[in-house]
């Protein structure tokens, strides 16, 4: 079914592409949001990825690889958004905290809200390369080969990037854990 849609979209059938976009957009948005940690940028990235997919469909060689190819476009779009984010950073000012979205049911999870905040802070400290490879590994469940195809790098590079990302995440968590201890030390 999907192959048929992809082939029709490759031939210029916009209705077929619309169907593919409707099926894919939710997951693209979620993945972009996980990588970028920003709703607006995730929206831009997932939109840019789908527009690029339509414009570049002629470059797709194998319709069965559409999903991997689309993820590759999304990762590129996320990198671009992240670069924009770096340029924006110097203009950022502190604002009141936005209201938190309703948290999903965390029953059955091995962590609480404090852990979640700690993970969030640690993850945000990683660069976009590291965040991307962690999302591919832990959320999308990609194998090294699949991640390598999407990232356009050899599997060995993905392995080392994942290793560094995990170490960096652990280091970030460790640094985060030290802060309350230091604060406790100062207050006594």
């Amino acid at each position, binding site marked *: 079914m999907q192959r048929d849609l992809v082939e029709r979209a490759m031939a210029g059938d916009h209705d077929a592409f619309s169907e593919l976009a409707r099926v894919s957009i939710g997951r693209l948005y979620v993945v972009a949001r996980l990588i970028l940690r920003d709703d607006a940028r995730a929206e831009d990235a997932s939109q840019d990825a789908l527009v*690029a997919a339509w414009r570049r469909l002629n*470059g797709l060689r194998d319709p069965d690889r559409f999903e991997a190819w689309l993820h590759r476009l999304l990762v590129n779009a996320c*990198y671009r958004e992240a670069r924009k984010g770096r340029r924006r950073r110097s203009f950022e000012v502190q604002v009141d905290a936005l209201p938190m979205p309703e948290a999903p049911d965390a029953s059955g*999870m091995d962590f609480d809200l404090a852990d979640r905040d700690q*993970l969030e802070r640690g993850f945000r400290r990683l660069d976009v390369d590291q965040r991307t490879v962690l999302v591919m590994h*832990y959320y999308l469940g990609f194998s090294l080969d699949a991640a390598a195809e999407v990232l*356009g790098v050899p599997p060995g590079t993905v392995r080392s990037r994942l290793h560094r990302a995990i170490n960096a995440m*652990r280091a970030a968590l460790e640094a985060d854990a030290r802060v309350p201890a230091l604060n406790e030390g100062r207050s006594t």
Partner: protein
Amino acid sequence: MTSPNASRDDFDRLMTQWMEADAHAREPEHLIDSVLERTRAARRIPRWLLPERWIPVQLTMPLRGVPRLAPILLLIALLLAAIVAFVIVGSRPRLPDPFGLAANGRVAFLSNGQIHAANPDGSNPIQLTFGTRTAAMPVWSRDGTRIAYKLISPASTPEEPTLFGDLIVVNADGSNPIPIEPETKGMSPAVWSPDGRWLLYSRLEGTVDQIYVAAADGSSPPTRVGNPATVNWAPTFSPDGTKIAFFVQSSGIEVMNRDGSDIRRLNTSAFGEIDSAQWDPDGNRIVVSAATSEASDLWFVYLDGTPERHLRTVGRAEVSPSWSPDGGRLLYLTSTTGTSFTLMVADAEGTNEQVMPGQYSYVNPTWSPDGSRIAAVNDLGSVARVTLLDPDGVAEAIVIEGALPAGSLIAPRSDIPVWQRTAQ
């Protein structure tokens, strides 16, 4: 719970659960509408402009030359070694006529991000371009004395690594580089005028493709030709160089004089996306592969106002048509799947088609300048095969195998000679 000393299994489980918990957000409702609105208005990038058709690239990496070159070099070496079996080495000072049969000269190819040329037997390879910037889209002049190419600019983006570049002309030995136009955006492969005086190409002006004619010796700035109110792209010179055929907003093919005057639409039927077009060597008609409501089909469109002729086939697509150098035969790819293609050779009217053996990729097959062979590519797998076929089916096909990164270029558009034309 989030102790850095947690075991790897604990850490893995924690990360997975955290991401799954964080992935409950739904995309905004307006997002799909925004996407579809933008895609309806967006023009598809033509296949031949996509970077993977020209240089092997890793789209997520910054431009640092061309990676994974050893397989390409191996493949090129094999290709050159095999061609010698039937190619006459052209080294005579006499120049060939701009159209029609010619002897097979040297072969230009991309290696390590630079243009090289070698004799068909692989001997005497010469690097023609140098530097840290990547060269792409080499095109021989019709007399084989010069090469026009695109020198990729650092302004290109990782997503579109060939978006910006300078148009350069060099002599066949790489000497005397002449800048024609710097920082072109979205430039199509340059097309030489038959007399070698002009270069023709389309490039983006803002977001609209426009057509430019530039003096090939750099003596005058490029001039825009055609209607600036329409999207015009993929221009080609007529065999006598007096006219330019081009595509308009993916729905039509038009022709104009070389100075941009007398613009005329050639097709009356509604064309969808146009795949490619090539002038008949006699200059009276153009063969076009254009999408219909059914599939991509071949059409003959005529310069004298005769209604176009639809070479309709049921249940299959025809793409990448190419006249033989003498105009006596028509080559094209057919497919029922969109991925695997069959090579067909028909007579000049598109009849008496013969099926060539083998299955091939959607990479334009190329005639040798002397018309004795067709180079077709199958690079769908991890091993690319270039097959050199005898269009008469007499001589045995030569199959060259070599590892090839996906997306590498072997044979570009059939109207862009990779094989240099020399006098017979």
